């Protein structure tokens, strides 16, 4: 398969991943300068940069001309995005941002793993690169959470944040447009929701057993609709681009 002939369902499927990665990266970088301590300020900036890079590699597969990636990201209508609620939500508390980072990165490698034997050779290469970077993301998130969980006040805040965020992760794994076609064409080796149980055991190994209902509730129905936080987020991330749409960064 070459990108010019990628079927539209496959492009939709890759777009969901690219949009998730891009918005997650943007959300992380919003902690630059305001994270509670310098080390986290820097870590979130670097991890965010990685996610933006992953998104660019995926957008390059979807678009005919990779020089159009910026315009594609910043000039799209909200209904043309395929991101999930988890990456659109405006989590302004540090504990929520940290828990989202933990939850997202504990799910991300499972998503890249599905591409390891993809029929699209470029995707195999991209996933190898991403998986290498993701190892550090998980180490970072987990080491910090592990330490914070030993402090009772932190533990209760993190647990509360986790209960808020887990239902959003349920949606991350599901409702991916084009997934059936992606599997039948060999682009991807299986359904993302089939590895949800692996993610769930990672959560419960770290945080202890949670109410089962959290793992089955999803209040967001579709990646074709945007969460109410998307508008302000999109406004913030387009701000600089709109100053000079033709600029090369």
């Amino acid at each position, binding site marked *: 398969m070459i990108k010019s002939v990628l079927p539209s369902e496959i492009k939709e499927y890759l777009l969901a991943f690219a949009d998730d990665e891009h918005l997650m990266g943007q959300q992380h970088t919003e902690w630059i300068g305001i994270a509670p301590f310098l080390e986290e300020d820097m870590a979130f900036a670097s991890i965010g*940069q990685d996610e933006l890079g992953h998104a*660019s590699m995926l957008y390059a597969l979807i678009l005919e001309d990779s020089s159009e990636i910026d315009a594609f990201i910043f000039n799209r209508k909200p209904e043309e995005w395929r991101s999930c609620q988890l990456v659109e939500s405006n989590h302004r508390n540090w504990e929520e941002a940290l828990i989202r980072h933990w939850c997202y990165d504990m799910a991300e490698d499972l998503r890249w793993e599905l591409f390891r034997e993809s029929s699209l050779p470029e995707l195999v290469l991209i996933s190898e690169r*991403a998986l290498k970077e993701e190892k*550090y993301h998980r180490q970072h998130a987990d080491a910090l959470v592990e330490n914070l969980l030993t402090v009772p006040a932190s533990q209760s805040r993190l647990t509360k944040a986790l209960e808020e965020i887990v239902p959003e992760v349920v949606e991350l794994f599901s409702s991916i447009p084009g997934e059936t076609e992606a599997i039948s064409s060999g682009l991807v080796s299986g359904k993302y929701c089939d590895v949800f149980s692996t993610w769930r055991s990672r959560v419960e190994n770290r945080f202890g057993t949670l109410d089962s209902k959290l793992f089955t509730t999803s209040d967001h129905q579709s990646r074709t609709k945007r969460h109410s936080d998307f508008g302000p987020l999109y406004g913030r991330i387009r701000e600089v681009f709109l100053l000079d749409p033709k600029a090369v960064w």
Partner: protein
Amino acid sequence: MSIEIAVSVQDIHAAVETVNDPEYPGISIVDLGLLENVKVNEIGEVVIELIPTFSGCPALQMIAQDVREVTEKLSGVKKVDVVWLNSPVWNVNRVTAKAEKDLAEKFIVAVQIQDRKVECPRCQSETTIKSHFGPSRCRSVHVCSGCNEIVETLRD
């Protein structure tokens, strides 16, 4: 019979070698292991394949532009394409001994060469890793056991 070549791969290589990493003025991108391949045909159409240290690096456009500019100045060059490859994945073992020495002496930055202990560029003592994420995405933070200083360390 010899084939007339518009410009040699060696000349292009030498030109690319003059391009510095924007973050480390004086250190060539070739010594940092970014150059993967140079291709040139008989009419002077050049393709330069680079690999990024990491996919989200904000300097990619700038580096590609610098590479294009120095190559276009060579006589016999008709067209230059700079391509960022997704494979191979860059790693610190691609950094030459020369760049490693320059990073230590000019920037007080160590390099995390695989399976080798990271040495403090100031006092050569052993260091331990403090965080994988430092002041930029390709630098981790180590602490020196000798002088107790923070050691920024180039990593993949």
